[in-house]
C-alpha cells in the first residue's frame, strides 16, 4: 500500500562518518562483570569487618582465599555452561567423585598422586562429555539430564566407598593444600590462573564469541555458521573437568575421601554465577562477574563462622542473602535485556511468520 512519503531513491546510501572514527573501546564490563557487584562486595567486606573484628586479620583473609578456591574453580566451569543457557547440577557429585577417587587411588602413597590426578581429571572430562552428548542428542533440558547423571555418579560413589570415609591423602598433597606464598595460598594461584585463562578465552577467542552466540540464540548462532553442538559439548566438558579440578583442590586440605564432600557445590556455584550477573537464560554475563560472586559467597560463609552462627542457621541466612542478591541481580540484568526483548515484541507485532 502506498505510504505517505515518496521514495527518494539516491543510488548511493549516505555515509555520515566512517566506522573507524566512531570506534571506541569495547566495554570493560566484559572483563569485570557489573560495577554494582563490586560495590556490593565492598559493602559486604565493610559489614563483615564490623560484625567480626578479626575478619580483616591476615590469617583470616588467607583463610577466605583458601575457602574460595574450590568454589571459584567450579563456578568458572558453571559460568561457561550457564552462558550457553544450560546448567550443570552434576558438579557436586563430580566433586565428591574426584575427592573419593583421588583418596582411594593415592591411599597415602605420594607415588600414586600423578596417576590419581590423571584418572580423576579424565573422569571429570568423561562426565562432562556424557552430559553434553545426552543434552544435544535428546534435547532434554540440561537441568534434568545433569540431575540424572548427578544421581548416577552419587550412587557410584556410595557403592565405591560404602558411604564411609575412604582412602588417605599423601603428605605432599596436604603440604600443597595448606602451603602458601606469603599470605596467598599456593592453590589460590591455580584458581587465579584458571579464572584468567577463562576470561581470556571468553573475551578473545572464537570459542568465547560462540558461547555468547549460542546462549543468546541458538538459531542465530546456527544460521551464522557456528557449530552449535561442538560449542555445547566443549562447555559441558570444560565444566566437568573444572569440577574435577575443584574436587582435587579441595581434597588437598582433607584427611580422607568423604562421599558427601561435594554437597552444596551445585547450588553455591549457580548462586555465584547468577550473583555475578550471568543470566540463566544465557548469552549475557561472564566469568568476570562470577569471580565477584564467588568472593561474596565465600566471605558470607567465613564471616558467619567467625560470628559463631550455628551451621544450621548459617544455611538459612545464606539462603536468604543469596536469594535477595540473586533477585537484585536478575532485575538489573533483566532491565538490560528489556530493550532487546522490545525488538522481538515489535517483530511479533509485525505479524511475522516464525518458522523453524
Amino acid at each position, binding site marked *: *500500500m*502506498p*505510504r*505517505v*512519503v*515518496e*521514495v*527518494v*531513491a*539516491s*543510488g*548511493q*546510501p*549516505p*555515509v*555520515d*562518518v566512517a*566506522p*573507524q572514527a*566512531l*570506534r*571506541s*573501546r*569495547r*566495554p570493560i564490563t566484559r572483563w569485570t562483570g557489573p560495577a554494582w557487584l563490586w560495590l556490593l562486595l565492598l559493602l559486604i567486606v565493610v559489614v563483615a569487618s564490623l560484625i567480626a573484628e578479626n575478619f580483616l586479620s591476615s590469617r583470616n583473609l588467607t583463610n577466605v582465599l583458601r575457602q574460595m578456591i574450590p568454589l571459584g574453580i567450579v563456578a568458572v566451569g558453571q559460568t561457561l555452561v550457564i552462558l550457553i543457557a544450560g546448567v550443570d547440577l552434576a558438579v557436586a557429585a563430580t566433586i565428591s567423585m574426584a575427592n573419593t577417587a583421588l583418596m582411594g587411588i593415592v591411599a597415602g602413597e605420594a607415588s600414586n598422586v600423578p596417576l590419581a590426578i590423571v584418572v580423576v581429571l579424565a573422569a571429570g572430562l568423561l562426565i562432562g562429555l556424557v552430559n553434553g552428548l545426552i543434552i544435544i542428542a535428546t534435547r532434554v533440558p540440561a537441568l534434568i539430564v545433569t540431575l540424572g547423571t548427578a544421581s548416577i555418579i552419587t550412587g557410584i560413589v556410595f557403592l565405591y566407598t560404602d558411604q564411609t570415609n575412604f582412602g588417605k591423602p599423601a603428605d605432599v598433597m596436604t603440604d600443597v593444600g595448606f602451603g602458601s606464598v606469603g599470605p596467598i595460598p599456593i592453590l589460590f594461584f591455580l584458581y587465579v590462573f584458571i579464572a584468567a585463562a577463562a576470561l581470556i578465552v571468553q573475551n*578473545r*577467542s*572464537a570459542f568465547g*564469541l*560462540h558461547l*555468547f*552466540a549460542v546462549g*543468546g*540464540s541458538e*538459531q*542465530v*548462532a546456527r*544460521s*551464522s*555458521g*557456528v557449530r552449535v553442538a561442538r560449542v555445547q559439548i566443549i562447555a559441558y566438558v570444560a565444566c566437568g573437568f573444572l569440577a574435577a579440578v575443584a574436587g582435587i583442590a579441595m581434597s588437598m586440605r582433607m584427611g580422607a575421601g568423604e562421599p558427601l564432600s561435594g554437597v552444596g557445590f551445585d547450588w553455591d556455584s549457580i548462586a555465584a554465577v547468577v550473583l555475578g550477573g550471568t543470566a540463566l537464560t544465557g*548469552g*549475557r554475563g561472564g566469568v568476570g562477574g562470577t569471580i565477584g560472586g564467588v568472593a561474596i559467597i565465600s566471605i558470607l560463609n567465613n564471616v558467619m563462622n567467625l560470628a559463631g552462627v550455628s551451621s544450621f542457621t548459617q544455611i538459612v541466612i545464606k539462603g536468604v542473602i543469596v536469594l535477595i542478591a540473586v533477585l537484585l541481580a536478575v532485575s538489573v540484568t533483566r532491565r*538490560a*535485556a528489556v*530493550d*532487546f526483548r522490545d*525488538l*522481538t*515484541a*515489535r*517483530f*511479533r*507485532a*509485525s*505479524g*511475522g*511468520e516464525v*518458522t*523453524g
Partner: protein
Amino acid sequence: MSLRRYFERRARSEREGSLIKIEQISKQFDGVHALTSVDAEFNVGEIHAVVGENGAGKSTLVKILAGVHGPDAGRIYLNGEEVSFGSPREAMDASIAVVYQEPSLVPMLTVEENLVLGRETTKLGFVATDSMQAVADRVLPMVGASIDPSTPVEKLSIAQRQLVEIAKALSIEARMILLDEPTSSLSIAEIDRLRAVILDLKGRGVGVVLITHNIDEVFSLADRVTVLKDGQVTLSAEISEVTPADVIKAMIGRDLAHMFPPRTVDDRERRTVVEVRNLSIPGRASNVSFALRESEVLGFVGLIGAGRTDVAKAVIGATGRRQGVVFVDGEESRIREPADAIAEGIALVPEDRLADGLVMDLSVRHNIGLPQLAALSRFGLLDRAEESRLANEQIDSLSIKTPSNSTTVSNLSGGNQQKVVLGRWLAKGCRVLILDEPTRGVDVGAKSEIYKTIRQLADNGTAVMLISSELPEILHLSDRIIVMSKGRIVATLDNHAVSESDMAGEEDLIKLALGLQSGSGAGRDAPSG
C-alpha cells in the same frame, strides 16, 4: 512479454547468467504442503520481489535457498550447475546471504563481533581483532550505518540493527542477498534509508531477493515480482508488465475492489460523542480541535511524529501534561487516566497490539472477558458460562475464525487476533474506538476482514477514530479525514456526502501531510483548529 523484452532478457541472462534457478521445488512440513512445484529464477543486479500472504510459503522458500531446509523435491541451480545446500554454511560459501525476519544478532556481542560471528579469522583460536575491524570498516559504510562498531548490539536502535544485519550478510561478499520482510518493524524514514541501501546493492551487481507483503515496496523497488499463494507461484513477471491490482489479485485470489466494504454515503445528522477543543501537548501537538461523531470513521493521516498518536492518547488520558478540553457527550470529561476512559466507553487499541493488547497464551474467551472479570464473576468466582456467552457473541458478530472460544490466541492469524482485541472492547460496551495502525503487519486477506469489521462497527453506531499510514485505508474507510503535520491539523476533508470518484486522492493527502499545499480540492473544508 513483448518480443523485444524477451530478447533483452535473453541477452542479459546470456551475458550475466541467471544466478540461481530453482525448478519444481516442493516442501512439506508434517504433511502440509508449504511449497508445491515452485519455479523461479533470480538474476544478478536485479531486485526480485517475492510476495504473498502469511503462510504462502515465502519464508520456506528463503530457508530452502539459505540451506536451512532441504527441499523434498526439485532442483537448485547456481550459475547453471545443480547444487544442494546441506547447511546454512554451505549456502554462505556459495555467496548467498540471508537477512532473516527474526532478529539474527546476538545482543550482548558488539557490532563487529556479530559481523564476523561464525566466520572469524583466528590466530591460535583467538579472534584476530584487526581483521574483524577491517570487516566492519568495509561493510558498515556499504549500508550507510554510522555506528560505533564496538557497541554491543543491544544498545542500537531497531533500524540500526537492521542495517547491521544487512552489513553482516554483505560481509561474506554476497552475490545474492535474501531479505525476509526487512521493513516490517521500521518507521517510514528508516524504510527510506533501507531502500537506498537496497538500490545501492543492486547497483553493485548483487542479486536481491526481497520477501515482502508490502505491495508498495514491490513497485517502488523491484525489477521482477513472483507471487506465492498457498505454496504455488500464481504470478511471475517483470514489474513493468503488471499493476498492483494484478499482484494483489494473485496474492489473495480476488480483486482489490473487494478489499474495502462500500461506504455508506449520506448526509444525515450525527451526534457528536467526543469533542476535543484546543488540545496542546508540549512538543507533540498544538491547538488541535476536532469532533468525533457516532456512526462515523474519522481518519487521521500524517507522517510519523505528526502527533496523531499523541492526540489519541490525550483523549483517553494517557498523556501527562496537556492543555485544552475534551468533551464527552457535550460535557467536560473527567478522564484522567485510561481506566476513566474505559468507564466512559472509550477504548484505544494501540499500534503494538500483540505486545500491549493481547495475552497471547490465554484463550480467545479469556482475552475477550479480560477487562470485565469483576462483572463476570459471582462470589469472586468467574462465571464461565457467562464469559463464554460474551465471547461467542463477539466471535459471531465479528466472524472471528477460531475453532472454539477456548483456542489460545497465539494460534489465530494476525487478522483474527486483531478482531479479538476489537471484540473485547465491543463486549465491554465501548462507543468510541480509537484504532492506531490497525492493519500494521497484517496480510492482505486479513486486512479486508478488518476493514469490513471497522465499517460494520461504524454503521452500527460506534464512533471510530482511525489512525493509519496506509492511504487507501484512510481514503476508503473514512467518512472524514483529518490531516496532521508537525502537531497541527492542516486540513479536514469530508467524504460523507461524496462519492468515490470525487474523493480526494492519495497525492492530495501526501502533499497536505508534507505541508506542501493547503489549497482547494473536492470535498475539502477549510482547515480547522
